[in-house]
């Protein structure tokens, strides 16, 4: 129950305070966005959802930075593997 899931905001109905419609893996539901008061939110933004509330707006730049780090690690590993494959130590 402590689990949170990312969802994409698809609509912020103008007539309902604190509510947004989100898409979570194809399922569309309303969630409460009152805890993100003061943060600009628009359709296309991603939020972390827990027990019906958006707890945090997902920071796409940070997500990309983390993925670049992982890509980098993957690349270094691939390079090392390629170098090992190309090596021909005889004795």
């Amino acid at each position, binding site marked *: 129950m402590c689990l949170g899931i990312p969802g994409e905001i698809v609509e912020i109905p103008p007539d309902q305070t604190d509510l947004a419609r989100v898409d979570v893996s194809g399922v569309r539901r309303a969630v409460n966005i009152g805890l993100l008061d003061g943060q600009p939110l628009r359709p296309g933004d991603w939020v972390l959802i827990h027990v019906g509330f958006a707890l945090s707006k*997902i920071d796409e730049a940070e*997500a990309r930075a983390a993925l670049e780090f992982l890509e980098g*690690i993957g690349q270094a590993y691939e390079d090392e593997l390629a170098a090992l494959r190309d090596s021909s130590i005889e004795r």
Partner: protein
Amino acid sequence: MRFVDEYRDADKARALSARIASLCEPGRAYKFMEVCGGHTHTIYKHGLEDYLPETITLVHGPGCPVCVIPMGRVDDAIHIAERPDVIMTSFGDMMRVPGGRGSFFDSTAQGADIRMVYSPLDALKIARREPDRQVVFMAIGFETTAPSTAMTVLRAAAEGVRNFSVFCNHVTIIPAIKAILDSPDLRLDGFIGPGHVSTIIGCRPYEFIARGYGKPLVVAGFEPLDILQSVYMLLLQLAEGRSEVENQYARVVPWAGNIRALRAVNEVMELRPYFEWRGLGFISHSALRMREKYAAYDAERLFDIPGNRVADPKACQCGEVLKGVLKPWECKVFGTACTPETPIGTCMVSSEGACAAYYNFGRFSRQRVREATR
């Protein structure tokens, strides 16, 4: 970007695994505690221990909100639920948690009106629709969940809903981590910090762990690569002689947390002088109760509760599992007398409980457990 699949790539996991192995000092054993049950769940679901050298042990911490609820509190909740004027509402995880007199499920069979809800807002919705009944929300959870309860109470107050109340069992993670650090049972090299708790409290509250206890802590996300990367970051700190708080989960966790959420909690709730945790005993200032100002929404004030302490069953070793002293399969009743269908202890109930995670993902088959405990 969907913020899920990207963090499940097997090639990247293998690459991280190689980097992790290269950071381990030969001959040194490492013990890292993942505080949060959500992490325990990911670790067993994806078999992450297979990606780590055998010299690294992941120790499961107390961060499973269902697991730490003492039996006496379950009895208190059932006592309220048995009143004919009451509708008790609860997250599904709570339904099978055994108290001294059975679980919510058992009470339902005996006629109590206990309904599962996904959100405290669903409980409030029931209260609006059934104005002649008292709707009580069994509030459990760490700092992740407390703001949702607080916001729901504020909403009820704003709307003037008078038949909604909260049986507040929210707990706070920092005192539990401190109790573990002060416990002589366990020597840890660092912590994988709870990601979703940190979306609310931020990263600063952990600084005493890095500074005062000299242990690194990395706040981590919940996908497999998040956890492997946080192990890598912990090892890098140790290799470089650092002990700092770092944030691997910056895409979701702001360093300062969620001020709006903290304000909502602080408006509605206050720290209890002490609270009993299953397995860890009484811990000072480790849980929240409703403030006097919101007495009309406080089930503890509205209903008489017995408030009895109930000792855990003798066979149950959840306490040792929650402190990280025992691995789930080392418990005598694991997988035999205690299963997710007929749990004796709380760690077997919630999907975030260490025992349920081991059991459900078959990391230790019943056969192997029988052999191991023979």
